[in-house]
């Protein structure tokens, strides 16, 4: 989504400011009225140009979302004991599917919910630390740097499904992992070790992603900043803490946000590595998929909606609290004021 947004926002950006610029470029000769009609004309033009995108988004994003919301209000089809056939229509149950989450049947949901949260927090935490370290290494000038960069990126290039299978062999009862630690841990059974296996595989796969984004952030920091710091006698640790980290923060925040959203909808890795219906690693996506595959679309939709809201809240929190600049300079729902503030911030940085 984020990658798609810039052209759209470019057209949509600052309906107030764009015409002012246009007017200025047209020169002072133009009458006030003429300027006004140009404003209205280009505004309408912009709206026209954007409308196909909005329509497509409505069809691909909004409509399915609304359908899922609607589906989550329906229960499961019942069996008629006389004929032995399942009824054709799903009963309307209102918010029952959501209420069930807080009832007796919600145990599995909450387990999945905490697993999801646990994985997101732990994997993203580890990935951030390792990713930044990777970026710092990749940023250093040394011979063979290209090779190191390429090799760090390999895990990210492997599809998750493949790396899931790969790690399944590593965590096999007589696989490499057990040979290394010298004792037999049955990684793919239930228990905390299954969680550890998933975390290791996930961090291995996605730390390079953070590394990559942070590296991009590192490369725009000017050398003279460090030189000045060195002159002032700042230790490398101080330099890292007071220069590198603050300057790389925008890139890092976006990377962490993306990883958080990804980790919250984690599905394929635990599914392939440990297996479906394993309580210790079942995530919300796995639960929803499992319910849907057992033809209980109502509860499945309800779980998916809860996950959707959860992800949305996390994303909002990131944008509001930490000021992650997700979509260039026109970030999320921040409103005009925010946008201008962030624009101003940018100008200051580049100045």
């Amino acid at each position, binding site marked *: 989504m984020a990658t798609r947004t810039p052209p759209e926002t470019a057209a949509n950006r600052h309906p107030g400011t764009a015409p002012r610029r246009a007017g200025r470029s047209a020169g002072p000769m133009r009458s006030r009225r003429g300027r006004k009609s140009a404003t209205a004309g280009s505004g309408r033009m912009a709206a026209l140009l954007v409308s196909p995108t909005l329509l497509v988004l409505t069809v691909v994003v909004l*409509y399915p979302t609304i359908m899922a919301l609607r589906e989550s209000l329906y229960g499961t089809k019942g069996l008629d004991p006389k004929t*032995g056939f399942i009824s*054709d*229509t799903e009963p309307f149950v209102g918010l029952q599917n959501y209420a069930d989450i807080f009832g007796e049947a919600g145990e599995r949901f909450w387990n999945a919910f905490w697993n999801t949260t646990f994985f997101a927090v732990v994997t993203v935490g580890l990935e951030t630390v390792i990713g930044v370290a990777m970026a710092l290494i990749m940023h250093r000038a040394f011979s063979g740097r290209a090779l190191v960069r390429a090799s760090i990126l390999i895990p990210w290039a492997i599809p998750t499904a493949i790396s899931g299978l790969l790690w399944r062999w590593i965590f096999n009862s*007589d696989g490499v992992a057990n040979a290394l630690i010298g004792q037999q841990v049955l990684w793919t059974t239930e228990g905390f070790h299954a969680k550890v296996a998933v975390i290791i595989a996930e961090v291995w796969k996605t730390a390079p992603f953070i590394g990559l984004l942070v590296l991009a952030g590192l490369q725009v920091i000017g050398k003279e900043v460090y030189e000045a710091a060195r002159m002032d006698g700042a230790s490398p640790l101080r330099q890292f803490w007071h220069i590198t980290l603050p300057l790389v923060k925008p890139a890092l925040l976006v990377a962490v946000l993306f990883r958080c959203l990804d980790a919250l909808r984690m599905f394929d890795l635990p599914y392939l590595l440990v*297996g479906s219906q*394993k309580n210790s690693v079942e995530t919300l996506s796995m639960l929803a998929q499992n319910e849907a*595959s057992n033809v209980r679309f109502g509860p499945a939709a309800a779980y998916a909606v809860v996950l959707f809201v959860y992800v949305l809240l996390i994303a909002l929190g990131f944008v509001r609290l930490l000021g992650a600049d997700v979509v260039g300079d026109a970030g999320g729902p921040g409103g005009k004021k925010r946008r201008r503030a962030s624009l101003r911030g940018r100008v200051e940085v580049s100045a």
Partner: protein
Amino acid sequence: MNARTTRVLQCSAVLVAAGLVLTACGSSDESSSSGQSKSPSAFTGRGPITFAAAKDSSGVVQKVIDGWNAQHPKEKVTFVQLPADVNQQRQQMIQNAETKSDAYTVLSLDAVWTSEFAAHQWIDQLPAAQFPLDEMLKPVVETVKYRDNLYAAPQSSDGGILYYRSDLLKKAGVSAAPTTWAEMKAACAKVERLPEAKDMSCYAGQFQKYEGLTVNFSEAVNSAGGVVTDANGKPDVDTPAAKKGLDFLVDSFKDGTIPKEAITYQEEEGRQAFQSGKLIFLRNWPYVYSLAQKSEVAGKLAVAPLPGLTGAGSSTLGGHNVALSSFARNKATALDFIKFFTSHDSATTFLKEGSAAPPYADLYDDRTLVEQYPYLPVLKKAILNAIPRPRVVQYGDVSSAIQQEAYAALNGDKSSAQALKELQADLQKLSAQQ
């Protein structure tokens, strides 16, 4: 410029409208076909149809279809290959049925899906008189029925058999394959005294938390004389007999008869362990036979029916059946094709070229075939003694409940008595929902 944008807008508006209409069509028709009677529906319409089944690695399915196409140029069958993963096959078929699509005409169903597909009226009832069911093995025929009506035709069967290291048993002085669990453990004790069998474990099956565990648990319970669900589909698993079955597995894990890592075994891991000489006995499907013959243990293995508590045990039934999608067209052609596809001739081809266990009884005694597949007599016995897995509409949920409790018992998280008690409660809750 302006004219162009308007046209773009018009076009996209039309597209959007079309999209909405299409999706609306897909989702809104929930009313039709509710009053379907119990009698077989009319099979009308002739013309091209499709056959949806798992990816066919041996190519034999396409060969049989080609045979049909050569004879029926106007009623050609197209083979739609689904993913190899069983769950994905089921999902695609359910999706096809939920949208009432006519993309798949004839469906290749796993033997345990019949009840679910029939109860949802995703498949049509078939005329039983038109199929040679009396020539087929009885347990196999049971898997195609729902409430005593025929909903599919048996295409292939499958049963669990016991592979064992005949060379080691012979060396240790054990002359015959064990028929009970106690005999098996005694044989192992003797074999493990041999120097070459020092690090070997006795027995393994499939105990990872997946469908294979449901199979192995049901086999253990049935082999001890218990049942998971009784003849009427009512759960009856909290019994002393069932406990003896589960205890065999639990105790075997505890005393090392089954190696600890077998809790992670699916079919392939068990096969690898047996082939690399780590196991004396292995429960697995017939497909292992030809593969093991190409491995280190080639010529050192033999097969036997599964052992039980007091005598021969019971296998659960695998296999595939062929059913007719309720939403398909050209059903007259489809019915003829199903008859052709499940005929004696086709079954012989499937056995000869794809080593699929046939539903027809006489093929298991065919001398030339037995020469090619020496496990056939054992497999026949296994299938005749076999008990189908619970035949319930919500099979997916029943299987999950079994996996949940059996796995907890094998892991030592619950006593087997506790696990069975909770399983009985879970299954009762599930059957109450029906």
